[in-house]
Every structure is written in structure tokens, then in C-alpha cells.
């Protein structure tokens, strides 16, 4: 009979403790986890890249639902614990549930400290602590405007950089004269301030917040000198406070945090505590590495190891702002017994400072070049005597230990006990042993087995070098297929960096992301053009030169260099006037072939290029517009006659098809999108092999998607059912927008769905009403500029150069 373990809190410390426990004694406990956040376990230190758009929530998940299920852990998301009854050994949840425990692990974390000033609880004032905060910030960034971040420490600066990247006008208000004064000396603080200012962030050091202004919502911040800074969003990032209330109420010994011994036990031996809620040796920790150490010790003790001890930790800090390299560890107060070595290279923006005490490193700050961070931190941790290498110490490892080395040789020279991954406390020897012992060959495997580089990822390069060193030629680092030969970036990375860096033109992308060719190629240019169009619908101007010819001239090139022209027939409906106009056009321009297409419209084949504008003008006059039969975009919405005519029809399928087509035409997508609406399950419109298909039923509308009937034959999957047409159209638009944002260029909807998973798509566009609404709204915004008939533009003279020769020299022959 396993013992009962209850874990209160589901943050990073709790997640790690469970990992460690399961790897030691998988069957010793039956585990129940209470998490106050309505989510599974995610990597909180990666919230900054989520805010800046460089990562998504899915990227930072640590344990998903399946992990809890497969480890038979009872996870109660969104349930806070209100009370611990130590007599009865029970916890009482906010939902009224009572749960017995044999051992209890408290991992209640910390809360952001909120300045006790007037207005601190106004709507629009947020902290930077969990995913809800990030989502609130991202919601604000969509409206643009001004943000004030109170606090110029690690979190505040990461928040400021993220908000600036998302397009807000950001000011950081910081109490002391320089930024990050706890980790940085004033010189490095100044360099950091300059780098932040170059990112468009205004820094106000030595500024004290007196009040937050606003009536129904925040409107600004008043400083104690009377100055008022206007703000649509205020982020408080001035520190954290351990959540020790539950422990205090239960009568456990609490100071600033829950007091624990080296064995991570609280004053009640059956109750352990780990993470930010803990105070150990007079210190409360807020960085991840010591929290993981605590988790390890607690798990060892729970698993019966009576020797594991936590003896405090030195911590190192890295700022996660893309393009700003900053590393700091130890302490660097001035003191008579201390000496310092400083290197300053103003032109390169490099600053290094090492603080020594009795020939030992006690503090290190690296700015601009942090490659030696691990090496210095190791000297610091070991208390190594550096008197022998003091002359070259500041130049880092390669100088201090001999001639300059190539990067792999430098890694080879590191001792086995040097820490590679600061977040997870993994040293070189452990990584090398695991690679050889387990026969690992991929970075993902090394992360899974050792956790090295699995948290903040800053040491990924070092881990890869270690793999190269250990595996030799067996190590193939590239795991992502590049977009094309012009770049090493995959589609997803390129796209994230476009968003994160607010890159808004193809030259900007190629410059900032280091394209290896001067002008790209026929593979990457159309993809980038699409990504930019999709991500910046209101600003980006389409680049015709990065379009395939079909999309440039709005017709389909045929094998003889003539074109085919397909006018739109909404939902497959036409009328005598349109048919007459088509017949007239076919005769007037000697169009050799007229054919009915599979998408319920009419194809005019064999049109000479120079005739295209005149053909379009004639069709436009009869009220017809481009059918986009050539586009990576919405093609057709095929319908049946539905309840208007059919004795089986349950709904107005034709009308719905027309409404969908009129709403969605003109939208560009990663690859073509074909739709169908059938009026009953007999499915005459063949909706279940389309990218999106609707089957009408008596009670409403079944929305299917991810079908195909081309190179591959694939039936659709049911996405959801809706009762009304309005909801049906909203879901379809949200689905299409999600595909537009996540699909790789030329990746059909069914391939995208295979890649990201139908459940994830359903969660986004069906289960999460807020996300559906914002996807829908983004689709609507992009349609404003997209719904312009390209034929009318070109019949009106646009791009005339496309359709006429520059010169006619045919008479030359006769003249000679």
C-alpha cells in the first residue's frame, strides 16, 4: 500500500520534486497535486520569451496532462488549499474537498510584491508572475499605447523589453540610480540602460512612485517629484514575497518564508517545503537553480535517503532579453579586503568585472560577452585559488589556461565537475556520462535525461559542444529543417523571430536574421512575403516580386504560357447574366476551352497574357470578381442546394456557403483552402474531404476540417458542432486564422493539423472562447485590406507592365 503524498502548489519546484521522486521511488507514493493556477506545470522562467513572442505557451510546458495521467498523479488544477489539519493529517481545498496525507509537500511559491500606493489595485495594473499576467499584458499590447514598468530588476527589464517588442511605448521607473543594482555594479548598469534605450525603452532611474492614477482604469503613474507619466498599462515588478500564510495558519514555524532545515523539513517532520515559499539559513531564494536543489533534497528524503542535505546556494543571473548578454554571480560590494579586475571595451560594448578576495573569485559581472560565465561561476563556487592566473583571468578561460582555443577545445578543457547548466545544476561529467551511458545522440534526448539546457536554454550551445566532443562525427546538431539554403532557420523559428523583432519587410528579415544570400530564393521569398502579410496585415505592403507568377498576374499559367481565368461564383451559384458575359468573353478573345471545374465554377483556358486585363474588365462589368483559383488562399466554397430545394435538406446550405465565401474571400493562407457546405449528412457537396467542411444537421452545423482529396486522400475530422450560422462562421474564421498563424508556407491544413494535433486546435478555437474571439478579430482585421478584387485593380491599370511587352522588335526581320 503506497503512502499518500499531497503536494500543495504546482510550480517549477513542485514539478521538479515530483520528477526526482518518480525517478527514485516510482511506486512508493500515491500522489495528489493541488495547483491554484488552472493549468498544468509550465516553465515560469520562460514567461519573458512568451511575452516577447519568441516562444508560445506550448513551448514552455513542462508536464502536460498526459504526464500526470501516465504517472497516476491526481492533479487538481485550479483548486487552492485553504487549511491544513495537522492533527488529522488532512488538507482542505477551496472546493470543500478533504484529502488525507502521510507526507505533505508545500510548494506554494511566492506572490509579487505590490507597492502600497493609491491606485495599486486599479484594472490595468498587473504583476509579472504567471501566464495570466502575460496574457493580460499581451491583451494590452494589442491595443498599443503606453506602459510603465515599476522596477528595473531582472523581471521588470524582461517585461519592459517584451512589451517594447510587442509595440508598446515603455518606460521603466526604478528607485535606485542604476538598473539591477543587486546584481550589477553601476558601470554594467549603465551599459544595460543604454542597451535598453536602444530597444526603445525609456529608463527613469532614481524615480519613486507616489501614486497610480486613474478612475475606472489606470491612466498613469505619479512620481514623488510630481511628474505624471501617462500609462495604459502598469506592470509591478519590484520583488516577490514568499507565500507562507497557509503554513503560518497551520502553526508551522515561519519567518519571512516557511522555515526549513537542511533536510527540507518544516517544524512538522511530516511536512516538507520547497521553492520560493521557503526560508533556509536566513535566505529566501527566487532563482530557479536553488529551488531545483531543494526539490532534489526533498525528493531524496521522501524516498528514504536520510543523508541528502541542502546547504544553501550561490546563484548566477542571466538576463533573458534577446540581444543583451548579461551574466552576474556572487557579490561585489566594495570593501577594503577586496580587489577587482575590470575589462572595458567600449566599442564592442563589452564590460567584465571580477571581484577577488584573498585570491579567490567572490563576484563576477559579464556584459556583452558572457561566454565565460560558467567558467567564472565554477571558480567562484569552488573557491579556487586564482593567484597563478590572475594576469589573464579577466580574458577568460582560453587565456587563463593557455593559448586561445577553439570553442570545442575550450569545453574539452573544462574539469568534469564544472557546472554547465546553472538552472538545473548539471555538471559536465554528468552530461558526458549520460551521453555515453545511455547512447544519446540528440539534444532532445540529452535534455530529457539530464535536464541540461532544458530550462532557460542559455547553455544550449555548451551542451551541443559537449555532445560534439563526446560523440564526434555521430553528432548532427541540426534538428530543424531550414526553410531553404539561404538560412539555417526553420519556418517556425523564422516566423517567431519576425514577430519578436517586429521585422516588417523582406530586407529587414534577411538582414536581422542573417540570410546567407543577398536576395533570398524562390523558396524563402514567397514564404517570407506570406508571413509578413499575415503578421502585419495593416502595415506590410505585398511584394509582388516575391509572388509566384499565378498570384502576381491573378491567373493560372498553363504549359504553353497562356493563362486560365476563373471568375468567382459564390457558393457555386450563377445566373444568365453571368453566363452570357462568360460566353461573350470566350468569343471575343478567342478563348479555346471553357470547362466546368470541380469547385463549381467555370474555367476559361488558353487566355493570352496581354488579353488578361480586358477579359477581367468585361467580367467585372457583369459583376464577377476573381475566383482566386491560383491563390494560396481561399479558393471555393462548394455547396449543395440545401433546404431551398432538396427534400432531405436540413438547413440553407447554399446560403451559408455564400455567406462563408463572401466573408472569407481574399484571405491569404499558407496553402490553398477549399471549403464545402452540405445540407444534410448525405453530403452532396463532398464537405468531408475539404480543408473545412460543414455538414448541416437538424440541430445545427457540424464543422469538419483537415480533409484532402488531391495528392493524398484524407477524410475530415470533426472539430465541433454549433447551433447557429453566426457561431459556425466564427469558428471557421478562428480556425482559419490559427492555421494562417501556425501553418508553414505551402503546408496544407491537414498537414498542419497532423503536426500540431487536432486536440490542440480544438482547445484553441472551440474550448477557449477568449482565444477564439481574438483569433476571429485578427482575421477580421486582416480581411480589411485583403478583400480588394485584384482583377478590378489590374483592369484599372495597375501593374500594366506585367501584361505588355517592353518593346516589339518583330519587324526587325522585315526591315533587314
Amino acid at each position, binding site marked *: 500500500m503506497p503512502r499518500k503524498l499531497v503536494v500543495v502548489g504546482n510550480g517549477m519546484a513542485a514539478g521538479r520534486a515530483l520528477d526526482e521522486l518518480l525517478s527514485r521511488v516510482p511506486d512508493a507514493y500515491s500522489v495528489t497535486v493541488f495547483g491554484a493556477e488552472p493549468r498544468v506545470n509550465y516553465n515560469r522562467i520562460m514567461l519573458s520569451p512568451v511575452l516577447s513572442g519568441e516562444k508560445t505557451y506550448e513551448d514552455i510546458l513542462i508536464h502536460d496532462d498526459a504526464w500526470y495521467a501516465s504517472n497516476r498523479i491526481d492533479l487538481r488544477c485550479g483548486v487552492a488549499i485553504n487549511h491544513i489539519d495537522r492533527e488529522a493529517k488532512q488538507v482542505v481545498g477551496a472546493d470543500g474537498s478533504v484529502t488525507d496525507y502521510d507526507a505533505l509537500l508545500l510548494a506554494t511559491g511566492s506572490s509579487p510584491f505590490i507597492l502600497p500606493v493609491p491606485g495599486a489595485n486599479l484594472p490595468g495594473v498587473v504583476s509579472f508572475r504567471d501566464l495570466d499576467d502575460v496574457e493580460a499584458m499581451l491583451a494590452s499590447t494589442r491595443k498599443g499605447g503606453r506602459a510603465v514598468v515599476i522596477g528595473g530588476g531582472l523581471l521588470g527589464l524582461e517585461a519592459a523589453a517584451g512589451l517594447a517588442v510587442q509595440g508598446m511605448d515603455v518606460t521603466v521607473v526604478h528607485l535606485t540610480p542604476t538598473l539591477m543594482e543587486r546584481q550589477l555594479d553601476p558601470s554594467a548598469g549603465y551599459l544595460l540602460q543604454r542597451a535598453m534605450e536602444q530597444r526603445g525603452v525609456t529608463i527613469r532611474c532614481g524615480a519613486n512612485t507616489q501614486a497610480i492614477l486613474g478612475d475606472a482604469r489606470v491612466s498613469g503613474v505619479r512620481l514623488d517629484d510630481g511628474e505624471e507619466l501617462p500609462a495604459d498599462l502598469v506592470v509591478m515588478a519590484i520583488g516577490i514575497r514568499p507565500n507562507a500564510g497557509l503554513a503560518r495558519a497551520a502553526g508551522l514555524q515561519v519567518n519571512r518564508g516557511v522555515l526549513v532545515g537542511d533536510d527540507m523539513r518544516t517544524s512538522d517532520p511530516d511536512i516538507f517545503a520547497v521553492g520560493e515559499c521557503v526560508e533556509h539559513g536566513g535566505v529566501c531564494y527566487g532563482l530557479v537553480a536553488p529551488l531545483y536543489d531543494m526539490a532534489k533534497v526533498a525528493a531524496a528524503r521522501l524516498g528514504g535517503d536520510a543523508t541528502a542535505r541542502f546547504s544553501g546556494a550561490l546563484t548566477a543571473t542571466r538576463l533573458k532579453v534577446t540581444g543583451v548578454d548579461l551574466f552576474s554571480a556572487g557579490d561585489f560590494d566594495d570593501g577594503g579586503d577586496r580587489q577587482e579586475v575590470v575589462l572595458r571595451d567600449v566599442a564592442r560594448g563589452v564590460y567584465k568585472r571580477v571581484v577577488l578576495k584573498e585570491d579567490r573569485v567572490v563576484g563576477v559581472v559579464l556584459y556583452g560577452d558572457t561566454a565565460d560565465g560558467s567558467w567564472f561561476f565554477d571558480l567562484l563556487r569552488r573557491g579556487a585559488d586564482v593567484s597563478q592566473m590572475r594576469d589573464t583571468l579577466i580574458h577568460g578561460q582560453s587565456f587563463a589556461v593557455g593559448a586561445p582555443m577553439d570553442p570545442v577545445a575550450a569545453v574539452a578543457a573544462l574539469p568534469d565537475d564544472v557546472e554547465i547548466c546553472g538552472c538545473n545544476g548539471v555538471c559536465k561529467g554528468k552530461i558526458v556520462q549520460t551521453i555515453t551511458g545511455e547512447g544519446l545522440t540528440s539534444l532532445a534526448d540529452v535534455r530529457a535525461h539530464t535536464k541540461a539546457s532544458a530550462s532557460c536554454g542559455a547553455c544550449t550551445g555548451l551542451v551541443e559542444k559537449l555532445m560534439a566532443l563526446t560523440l564526434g562525427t555521430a553528432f548532427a546538431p541540426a534538428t530543424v529543417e531550414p526553410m531553404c539554403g539561404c538560412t539555417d532557420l526553420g519556418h517556425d523559428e523564422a516566423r517567431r523571430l519576425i514577430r519578436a523583432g517586429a521585422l516588417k519587410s523582406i530586407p529587414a528579415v534577411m538582414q536581422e536574421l542573417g540570410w546567407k*544570400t*543577398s*536576395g*533570398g*530564393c*524562390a523558396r524563402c*521569398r*514567397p514564404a517570407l512575403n506570406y508571413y509578413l502579410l499575415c503578421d502585419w496585415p495593416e502595415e506590410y505592403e505585398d511584394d*509582388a*516580386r*516575391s*509572388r*509566384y*507568377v*499565378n498570384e*502576381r*498576374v491573378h491567373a493560372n*499559367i498553363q*504549359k504553353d*504560357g497562356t493563362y486560365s481565368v476563373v471568375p468567382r461564383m459564390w457558393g457555386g451559384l450563377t445566373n444568365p447574366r453571368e453566363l452570357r458575359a462568360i460566353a461573350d468573353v470566350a468569343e471575343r478573345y478567342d478563348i479555346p476551352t471553357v470547362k466546368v471545374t470541380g469547385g463549381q465554377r467555370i474555367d476559361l483556358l488558353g487566355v493570352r497574357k496581354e488579353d488578361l486585363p480586358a477579359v477581367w474588365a468585361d467580367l467585372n462589368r457583369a459583376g464577377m470578381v476573381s475566383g482566386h483559383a491560383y491563390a494560396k488562399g481561399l479558393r471555393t466554397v462548394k455547396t449543395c442546394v440545401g433546404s431551398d430545394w432538396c427534400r432531405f435538406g436540413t438547413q440553407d446550405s447554399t446560403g451559408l456557403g455564400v455567406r462563408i465565401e463572401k466573408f472569407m474571400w481574399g484571405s491569404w493562407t499558407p496553402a490553398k483552402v477549399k471549403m464545402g457546405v452540405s445540407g444534410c449528412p448525405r453530403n452532396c457537396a463532398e464537405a468531408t474531404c475539404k480543408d473545412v467542411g460543414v455538414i448541416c444537421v437538424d440541430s445545427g452545423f457540424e464543422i469538419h476540417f483537415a480533409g484532402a482529396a488531391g495528392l493524398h486522400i484524407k477524410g475530415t475530422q470533426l472539430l465541433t458542432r454549433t447551433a447557429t450560422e453566426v457561431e459556425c462562421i466564427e469558428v471557421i474564421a478562428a480556425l482559419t486564422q490559427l492555421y494562417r498563424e501556425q501553418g508553414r508556407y505551402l503546408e496544407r491544413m491537414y498537414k498542419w493539423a497532423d503536426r500540431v494535433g487536432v486536440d490542440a486546435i480544438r482547445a484553441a478555437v472551440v474550448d477557449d472562447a477568449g482565444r477564439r474571439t481574438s483569433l476571429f478579430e485578427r482575421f477580421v482585421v486582416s480581411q480589411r485590406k485583403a478583400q480588394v478584387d485584384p482583377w478590378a485593380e489590374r483592369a484599372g491599370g495597375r501593374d500594366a*507592365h506585367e501584361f505588355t*511587352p*517592353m*518593346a*516589339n*522588335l*518583330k*519587324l*526587325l*526581320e522585315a526591315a533587314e
Partner: protein
Amino acid sequence: MTEWIDVGLITDIPVQGSRVIAGPAGDIAVFRTANGSVFALRDRCPHKGGPLSEGMVHGNAVTCPLHNWVISLETGQAQGADQGCAGKIPVRIEGERILLAASALHRYAA
């Protein structure tokens, strides 16, 4: 001595684009690259005769719109593993004007 024929202004061609010259022995595609160079090739891909003037111009190459062969603008030769050559027409630039070698216009009869 080569006879040169004025076919128009450099600015008649979009940057990274192409225009067609209707020639006595078939169409000629005149290309303008991102860095301002001008090249002329017979407007027929050596593969299946696709109109190179409709392809995407990148660096000093064009990708055929029909089957994505990449053709060097400098030599007319297919790049990579593909084999074939689209005839190259000598180009001279005088000020802003583009001149093509008259003799070459007749050379590539269909």
C-alpha cells in the same frame, strides 16, 4: 561590328523583375536584379519552354515558373543538377538605356 538595338529604359523593368521583348525569332526576357544589373535571355526555359520572364529573380538567377528550374542570368545555364541553357543575349547599358545585340536576337529561331 556589333549592332545594338535600344529596347527601353532600365526603369521600365521592376527591380527583381523582368519584361518581355517581342523579338523576330521569339520572345526575349530582360531581367533587372536587386543590385541593378541587367541581363537578357531567350524567354524559354531549357526544360519545358516555360516563360522565364514570369519567374522569380533572386541574386543573379531566375527560377522558372513551371517547374522551378533555376537558370543563371549570367550564363543562361541551368543550375544545380539540371542541365540545359537558355540562350544569352549580350546587353549594353548606355546611361539609363538598355541595348541588346541585334545579331543575337535572330540567333535562336524556334
